[in-house]
């Protein structure tokens, strides 16, 4: 009877399974009665939160992959198909897109927890190193995932990041060609990135399993950083920490839902709403916020190879952190100097992030150099020396009571939030033009696009804009979203002549549209569009409200901003002066003038009114899910808030016996 497990479960089915494969015993041991220091503060939630992130990302990712096309011709459109046509596709996609940011916020705080309380020190070195490997894998996964939508930022991000490897002498060029599968980022690159983006999360699961397994051998650190001395220092993981983690998860999901439903593109880049164009780099190219500090390190050195080495080095050094820090005291609470310098280090990291968001000019270059210097000096000089000269405070005898560090936690969260905010202005700053800010019907958490205005805007689009601008991601059936009835849509579609495939002789055929038809394009292809417009391509308007900094305000400004050029300005031939267009010279002649369109509802047809209506319509066209999204957001947040209260009340009851 070698190896049959003696199970203690009473339920006969569980007992039968457990005798042969003791997974229930294992779960009970590792997550049920597992002795856990009883003095954790809320920083110890972040491991569980990261697990939640990973699970949500894998789940949503699998469903996205069912509709995504890893093909340079189709990728961008397939994402729009997910956003517009797939049931709840926008929800799944925005959860996934914002999930990447959530995952990094949580992981960075989790790492900070380890740094502050010395969780990397003996005997947890391997646990820490596995954590660093997890971070690296996460970065690779996030990077490749960002490439998949095949927008401008995807494409140029992929180009820049893969080109990092070209810095290495001799082999560099070959590595880059190998990564690309060609001589530029192209179809083979996208296809393999998709394959790897699907694979790596499962590799992550493997490494996380090892990370957790190592944790369960050496046991958790705690805010005091001292070893657990007796069973009195611990509580069983369940129910004490399962319930405490649940509180954190509810609050965390609330924040996530807030981003998804009320500011889904806050952390994104407008340029990624423009399909990849291998012939034109966007004016300001910035990576996602979670890569900004490393990006700033890269740019702080005026030497390609050194910059790349420092960038990778800044991460790889973390692997040897347990040996760089020579102090044997774990928690920063008992290290009066370390307690201060760790914040300086965090500050240097945040400053690097902010620098990364700005163009490398003037003050930002100096700042990023200083911050880079401290980042490395902290690891290579301060930590080794500090351990020798610092006089730690006396350590307590045992873990007595839970350590509450509310203020520290709040400080860290606030810092994280402002850090995120600070990483935003880079793009606004480059605009240097003050847009005429309007009050929009869709502003704020309760706002939804004004249907009447959107309908008028649609009239403006179809009578004016549609002469040059396509909206290829919209179909006539979508107009139900601005309140047109099925009959109105049918009638309108039938009044438009659209391409209808090939006739029996194999020639292109046209006929009246149906609700299922795409919005008719004014030109059969881009070449024809350029030829008809002095070489300038009128952009597709489906996503224009998201693809331009300022959104609806920008469109509005552009419509009303035509004027005579200032005396001292030299206009290029064929260009028109516009106050709100970056550079002020635009190929489009003034499209709207007073009274150009006849409204049926009696609204005034002056320029301002028409500009506002068409901006509302285009905003809706780019965000057709807005109304539903906000409704779902309210329900989700209310529900999660209620659950946070319930779990918190339960947590107090559970912990009442210990406190």
């Amino acid at each position, binding site marked *: 009877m070698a190896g049959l497990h003696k199970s203690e479960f009473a339920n006969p089915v569980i007992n039968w399974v457990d005798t042969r494969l003791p997974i229930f015993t294992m779960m009970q041991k590792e997550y049920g009665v597992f002795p856990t220091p009883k003095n954790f503060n809320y920083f110890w939630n972040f491991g569980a939160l990261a697990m939640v992130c990973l699970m949500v990302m894998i789940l*949503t990712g699998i469903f996205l992959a069912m509709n995504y096309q890893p093909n340079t011709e189709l990728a961008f459109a397939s994402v729009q198909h997910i956003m517009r046509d797939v049931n709840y596709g926008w929800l799944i996609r925005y959860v996934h897109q914002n999930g990447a940011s959530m995952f990094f916020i949580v992981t960075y705080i989790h790492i900070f927890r380890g740094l502050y309380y010395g969780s990397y020190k003996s005997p947890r070195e391997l646990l820490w190193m596995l954590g660093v490997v997890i971070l690296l894998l996460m970065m690779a996964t996030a990077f490749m995932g960002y490439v998949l939508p095949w927008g401008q930022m995807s494409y140029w991000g992929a180009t820049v990041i893969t080109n990092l490897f070209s810095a290495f002498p001799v082999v560099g060029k070959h590595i880059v060609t190998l990564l690309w599968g060609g001589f530029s980022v192209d179809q083979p690159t996208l296809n393999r990135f998709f394959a790897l983006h699907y694979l790596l999360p499962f590799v992550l699961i493997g490494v996380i399993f090892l990370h957790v397994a190592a944790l369960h051998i050496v046991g958790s650190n705690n805010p005091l950083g001292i070893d657990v001395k007796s069973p009195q220092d611990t509580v069983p993981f369940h129910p004490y920490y399962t319930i405490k983690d649940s509180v954190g998860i509810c609050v965390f999901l609330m924040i996530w839902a807030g981003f998804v439903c009320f500011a889904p593109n806050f952390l994104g880049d407008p340029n990624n709403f423009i399909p990849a164009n291998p012939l034109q780099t966007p004016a300001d190219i910035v990576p996602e916020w979670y890569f900004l500090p490393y990006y700033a390190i890269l740019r702080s050195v005026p030497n390609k190879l050194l910059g790349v080495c420092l960038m990778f080095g800044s991460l790889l050094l973390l692997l040897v952190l347990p040996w760089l820090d020579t102090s044997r005291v774990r928690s920063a609470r008992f290290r009066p100097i370390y307690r201060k310098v760790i914040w300086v280090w965090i500050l240097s990291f945040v400053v690097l992030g902010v620098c990364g968001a700005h163009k490398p000019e003037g003050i930002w270059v100096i700042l990023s150099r200083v911050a880079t210097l401290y980042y490395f000096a902290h690891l290579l000089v301060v930590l080794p020396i500090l351990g020798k000269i610092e006089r730690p405070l006396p350590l307590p005898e045992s873990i007595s009571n839970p350590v509450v560090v509310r203020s520290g936690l709040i400080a860290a969260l606030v810092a994280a939030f402002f850090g995120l905010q600070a990483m935003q202005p880079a793009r606004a700053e480059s605009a240097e033009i003050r847009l005429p800010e309007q009050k929009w019907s869709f502003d704020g958490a309760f706002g939804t696009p004004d249907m009447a205005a959107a309908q008028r805007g649609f009239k403006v689009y179809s009578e004016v804009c549609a002469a040059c601008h396509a909206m290829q991601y919209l*179909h006539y059936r979508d107009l139900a979203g601005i309140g047109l009835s099925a009959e109105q849509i049918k009638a309108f579609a039938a009044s438009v002549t659209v391409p209808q495939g090939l006739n029996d002789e194999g020639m292109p055929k046209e006929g009246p549209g149906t609700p299922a038809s795409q919005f008719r394009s004014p030109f059969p292809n881009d070449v024809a569009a350029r030829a008809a417009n002095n070489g300038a391509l009128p952009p597709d308007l489906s996503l224009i409200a998201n693809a331009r900094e300022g959104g609806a305000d920008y469109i509005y400004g552009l419509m009303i901003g035509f004027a005579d050029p200032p005396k001292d300005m030299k206009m290029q031939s064929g260009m028109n002066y516009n106050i709100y267009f970056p550079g002020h010279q635009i190929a489009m002649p003034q499209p709207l003038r007073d009274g150009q369109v006849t409204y049926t509802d009696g609204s005034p047809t002056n320029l301002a009114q028409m500009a506002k209506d068409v901006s509302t319509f285009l905003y809706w066209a780019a965000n057709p899910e807005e109304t539903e999204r906000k409704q779902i957001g309210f329900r989700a947040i209310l529900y999660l808030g209620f659950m946070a209260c319930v779990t918190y009340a*339960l947590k107090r009851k559970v912990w009442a016996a210990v406190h």
Partner: protein
Amino acid sequence: MADSTAASTADSHGHDSHGGHPADPSKRDMLELMASAGAAIFGASIVWPLVASMNPAADVLALSSVEVDLTPIQPGQGIVVSWQGKPIFVRHRTPEEIKSAKDVKLNELNDPQADAARVKAGHDEWLVLIGICTHLGCIPLGNKPADVRGEFGGYFCPCHGSVYDTSGRIRRGPAPKNLDVPQYAFVTDSKIKIG
């Protein structure tokens, strides 16, 4: 059960609840119930959109109708057009085929249905069918005169030998039902619109 764990932990660790209010078990049970029910509801509301995303998307549902010009189809011949990704058989029946379809007694049929119910009144010669075998989804032969048409002169499914007559009704073999008739209408005498 969790209750007793908490209590025993407190006991064995020699703590008492110095807050002065020992945990009220009934209130705690209530909270536990709410928390687990809440988690279950939340789980379901996550699963719902994910599963819904696998259902046909808006563009698939909105697939347009197709129009078919009947003039080139000679008696005895048929064509196949694609509608919603499915093959649609459009067959110009000969007078003999129509007669044999009409003459069958309903009680001889596995899935009784009169021929008149399967064609449009006044257009007896046109048979329009979804060309998918009701057994397991193969496309039956017989739309072209050169095809094997089975013993009833209609359609024959090569997969498991279902035999359909000249009205597309199942006569022999494992298929349970007649071939489906799609929604269609005559736009003019020589043109139909499917869908």
